[in-house]
């Protein structure tokens, strides 16, 4: 993959997708703890209060054609919600998503449907996203039918079998139902479904997490072929950093609903400026039992913050070894600390 080429063009060209200050909140009922003096009644039936769970709280980035942008970060930090917010599967509370000049957040469902042809998603939970009453052939072909990607039935059928083959699913599976597949096979059904309508952007949420390394390699090679040959653009959510390093041109690190560091892949693996990114990269497993059993894992200390009660100031300060008073009071915003390298931290590594 020619990583430098895409890095260079990215500074000049117009972005294909812009995400501006995206906020997705969920309204939750929180039980209010009655205090000692509360009446018996309110102790038995504690009051519920509406609170917002700020799953995504101001995420911005530009995506350029042919780029593979990795979205990484701790479980629960808002990666999937960001992805769903981009596709308008969760309507953002604030912010804009601009796809080739068109603002998506204000579109009606019908107008949106047209845009979906350009942008497809691979869901994190493959089984939940597959209709159990449709055969696998129908599940995969559905988007191509909706968008009339192919001229006629026989073209569609050819594309269907071809796509299945590319993700390592055999033709003979075509009439089976999703429940009769293994975890990794289901994940590949989701990938085939996203590819078949020939989108321009794929938002892939942990697309290879359930695949063994050989099939994972096959799918990753397929993704990079499509990027090279067709200029396909990806937002690639993954927790496997070796995969990220291999695949992606740029990395955005999220923490508690916000992006805390963005840089080209090579730069971020050489130098992590945010202490959270540093901890994340230091925890990668090595497939070698001799190294792995001797190694001391760096497990982040301190309390994992909850998006229901986000800490004041910098969201990472509760677990940061470098935290100072300023971090507890003031929220740092993304700033360019080096060329193409943005960090949201008052005391970044340099």
């Amino acid at each position, binding site marked *: 993959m020619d990583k430098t080429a895409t890095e260079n063009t990215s500074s000049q060209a117009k972005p294909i997708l812009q995400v501006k200050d995206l906020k997705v909140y969920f309204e939750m009922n929180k039980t209010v703890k009655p205090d000692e003096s509360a009446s018996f009644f309110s102790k038995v039936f504690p009051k519920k209060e509406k609170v917002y769970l700020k799953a995504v709280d101001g995420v911005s980035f530009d995506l350029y054609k042919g780029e593979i942008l990795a979205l990484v970060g701790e479980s629960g930090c808002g990666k999937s919600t960001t992805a769903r917010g981009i596709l308008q599967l969760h309507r953002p509370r604030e912010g804009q998503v601009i796809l080739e000049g068109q603002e998506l957040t204000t579109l009606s469902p019908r107008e949106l449907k047209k845009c979906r042809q350009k942008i497809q998603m691979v869901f994190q939970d493959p089984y939940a996203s597959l209709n159990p009453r449709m055969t696998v052939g129908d599940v995969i072909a559905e988007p191509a039918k909706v968008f009339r990607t192919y001229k006629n039935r026989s073209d569609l059928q050819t594309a269907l079998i071809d796509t299945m083959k590319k993700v390592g699913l055999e033709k003979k599976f075509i*009439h089976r139902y999703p429940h009769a597949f293994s975890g990794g096979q289901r994940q590949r059904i989701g990938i085939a479904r996203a590819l078949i309508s020939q989108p321009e952007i794929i938002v892939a949420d942990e697309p290879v997490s359930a695949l063994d390394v050989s099939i994972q390699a096959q799918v990753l090679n397929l993704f990079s072929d499509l990027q090279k040959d067709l200029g396909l653009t990806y937002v690639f959510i993954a927790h496997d950093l070796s995969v990220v390093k291999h695949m992606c041109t740029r990395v955005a690190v999220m923490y508690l609903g916000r992006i805390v560091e963005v840089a080209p892949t090579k730069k971020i693996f050489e130098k992590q400026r945010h202490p959270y990114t540093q901890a994340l990269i230091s925890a990668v497993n090595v497939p070698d039992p001799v190294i792995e059993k001797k190694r001391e894992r760096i497990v982040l200390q301190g309390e994992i913050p909850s998006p229901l009660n986000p800490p004041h100031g910098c969201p990472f300060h509760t677990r940061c070894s470098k935290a100072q008073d300023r971090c507890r009071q003031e929220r740092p915003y993304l700033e360019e600390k080096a060329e193409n390298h943005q960090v949201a931290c008052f005391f970044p590594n340099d």
Partner: protein
Amino acid sequence: METNKKKIVLEVEELYTKFTTDEGVVHAVNGISYSIREGEIVGIVGESGSGKSVSNLALLGLLATPPAKIYAKKLEFLGESLLTKEGFLDQKKLRKLRGNKISMIFQDPMTSLNPFLSIRTQMLEAVMFHRKISKEKAMDLAVEKLTLVGIADARERINYYPHEFSGGMRQRVMIAMALMCDPLLLIADEPTTALDVTIQAQIIELLQEINEKLQTTIIFITHDLGVIAGISERIMVMYGGSIVESGQTEDIFAHTSHPYTKGLLASIPKLDEDKDRLNTIEGSPPFLLKTLDFCPFYDRCEQRMDSCLEGIPPYIFTNVENEHKVACRLFDEQNGK
């Protein structure tokens, strides 16, 4: 060796699982045998679709029969047979063990969690079914386990429904649930696939801790060879419904024997190398619609020989001390004579 003296927790001999489908009979598990000792952590790796999940779901009686058909020559948990006289699963015994002495972390959290019930209802129900314990105690226990797996604000969050958690959080809820009754045997099917490296490290540490403190035996199914390298003492490699190689972890990595295992190790993307294309194992997985009478890896093997077509290769020791076994003619010829 000292470990050899330990009690055997699970003994499986010639376990078969077939599915009847419209296309024909799918032979998902083809007579696998192994035993697991108390306090061991054993990893199962292998290609997608090779039978890792099905073989474990089968022996716990968690597959719907039909379409599944399960048969074993021997299936013992702590010396007690879990089979009826006819060689089928004894569902009554299994029901008492499941979620109690044996628990399973499922690969697909969304299919095993009930979407219409809050996590609280699901966690409390499970423990109160097996233990005589008050609702308050059960609640405290559930909150404790959720906190252990890194769910912040657990007392509040336990009231949430599965879809209100992130993918990785659901996976951790499953883990917490499986730990509710302090099982003797924990079968963890890809328990960390949805977790980032830092939380993954925390979960692995937790599993190692319960393994050390409570002597919990763990079967750890994963495709992540980095994780397996760190946690397991022994590895079993599955291919096309059979175990093709097994042995102590260090030995499998240092003296990889089966050509499939070699291909698997060569396909891993590594942090310290820059490569344009990743290696793959060419070809497709074996056709499970018929039983093979030769090596299942034959079509894809770079080292195949004529003798590989002469029956299923025997599963034999290449190194007895390290318990290293392999089912491949390459070793049959070297050692078998």
